[in-house]
């Protein structure tokens, strides 16, 4: 099972309609994934030279103020931090590698769920409505978003094992399905310097794409390579800084529906999630073909 949803506005600035619409879509996918829920939002960009990091603390009482004091002594923080339950978003004026190395040394208890110019990632165990409320999704804005409701099949039900998985700058992936050769690929990706937080198969797919993009491949080329290298059944929805892509495995084991209007593209495991969107009655609706990459880039 599992449910995935994606909503991508083709043009214009970050809109405050994104959060409420994503809440509605995720809620429709409750039965498909009651274990955990997560979402990635692509919002306003961090200032030039800075990155946004979504950090996850082991408990909601975590002393973020003390952390911020320590962080500000090490790096410039051009925007104020925002706190959402066990997560907090910091805007940090330094590069990814320097920050992650500092964090691993100073605060190993914190996980980085997403890092990039625009991405923010939130995920936790619980039903979609509850998790959306926990992270105030109703009041969040952005240009595009991916969401996932998880029914766990191959690894534990924890916050860390929830989707989306982000292993590279502004890249994230949600997945419905299961990969069969993820252990071997994880091993080889580790040798290439890709970091993994869990033993989850989807994180391997995200890491694989990060590795291919790092080699200089376009997202489309990276997905073509994934078709050859990843074994299993899957529907992937992928978000990048300004893009959105969908891929189903060659035998289309897992369901997916795409819908497009002049303003937006939406993807969901089932149509009922798309039916919640304004304009869905007149949208072009189709089922993506197997082993075919569908991608959009913001204008």
């Amino acid at each position, binding site marked *: 099972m599992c449910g995935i949803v994606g909503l991508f506005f083709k043009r214009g600035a970050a809109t405050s309609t994104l959060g409420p619409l994503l809440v509605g879509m995720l809620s429709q996918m409750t039965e498909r994934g009651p274990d955990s829920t997560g979402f990635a939002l692509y919002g306003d960009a961090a200032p030039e030279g800075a990155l946004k990091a979504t950090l996850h603390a082991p408990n909601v009482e975590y002393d973020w103020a003390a952390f911020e004091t320590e962080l500000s002594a090490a790096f410039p923080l051009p925007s104020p931090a925002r706190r959402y339950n066990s997560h907090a978003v910091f805007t940090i004026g330094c590069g990814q590698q320097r920050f992650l190395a500092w964090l691993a040394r100073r605060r190993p208890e914190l996980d980085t769920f997403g890092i990039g110019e625009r991405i923010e990632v939130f995920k936790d165990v619980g039903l979609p409505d509850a998790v959306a409320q926990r992270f105030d999704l109703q009041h969040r804005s952005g240009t595009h978003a991916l969401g996932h409701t998880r029914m766990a099949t191959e690894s534990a039900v924890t916050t860390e094992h929830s989707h989306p998985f982000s292993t590279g700058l502004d890249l994230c992936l949600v997945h419905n399905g299961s990969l069969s050769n993820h252990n071997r690929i994880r091993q080889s990706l580790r040798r290439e310097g890709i970091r993994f937080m869990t033993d989850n198969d989807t994180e391997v797919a995200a890491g694989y794409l990060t590795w291919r993009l790092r080699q200089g491949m376009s997202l489309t080329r990276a997905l073509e390579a994934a078709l050859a290298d990843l074994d299993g059944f899957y529907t992937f929805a992928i978000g990048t800084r300004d893009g959105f892509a969908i891929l189903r495995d060659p*035998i*289309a084991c897992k*369901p997916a*529906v795409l819908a497009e209007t002049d303003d937006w593209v939406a993807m969901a495991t*089932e*149509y*009922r*999630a*798309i*039916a*919640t969107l304004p304009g869905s*009655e007149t949208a072009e*609706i*189709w*089922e993506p*073909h*197997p082993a075919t990459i569908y991608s959009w880039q913001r204008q």
Partner: protein
Amino acid sequence: MIEVDLARSSVRALNERLHRLSPATNERYWRVLNPNGAHAIAVGVTQPVHVEIKGHVGYYCAGMNGAATIVVDGHAGTGLAENIMSGSVRVRGNASQSAAASGRGGLVVIEGNASARCGISMKGVAIVVGGSVGHMSAFMGQAGTLIVCGDAGHDLGDSLYEAEIFVAGTVASLGADCVEKEMAEGDFECVATLLDRAGIVGDASCFRRYGSARRLYNFHIDHAAEY
């Protein structure tokens, strides 16, 4: 005409009303509004009533249909008319995978395209698709007829028993033990009659026929690679 608005009442309540109908019912014409992709709409109807659903439906719409005439004025999700016994189910848009799966009788008409595994394990149903079908359609079909006015995806009729397949367009590839067969006089008639019943315009003379080579019925060492 009885109208049921699924924005106000549940699918379960609708289906219970449909299941309670008696053969002599006067409630013969139903219209369902705001389906919004809900699953299992009008499943298990056993009386000769007409149900029109205005919008897109989710999974398993019109499953196990017996005698009813069900029309979806929109697209349909996975498993449309699964295990249909009799009556007819029509989709004015596209149908997702496994349409008419294991159908035993009746007629399923998809005016648009059907995706993968259309007619999988069909056991007597007649299926007419106005557009194209996806891969592995009629997989393990045992009886019945699949008519495709457009193209067929890969592995058409894989491991077929005895169902008949007619395709007007191209076939990406045939599945194991599925072969092209000659169109006989009766076959043109069969296609023309079914197109007529389905209300789909098509020229029977454009169709090619595919069926089982019957080499997978019993294990044969020469065919080990095909199992």
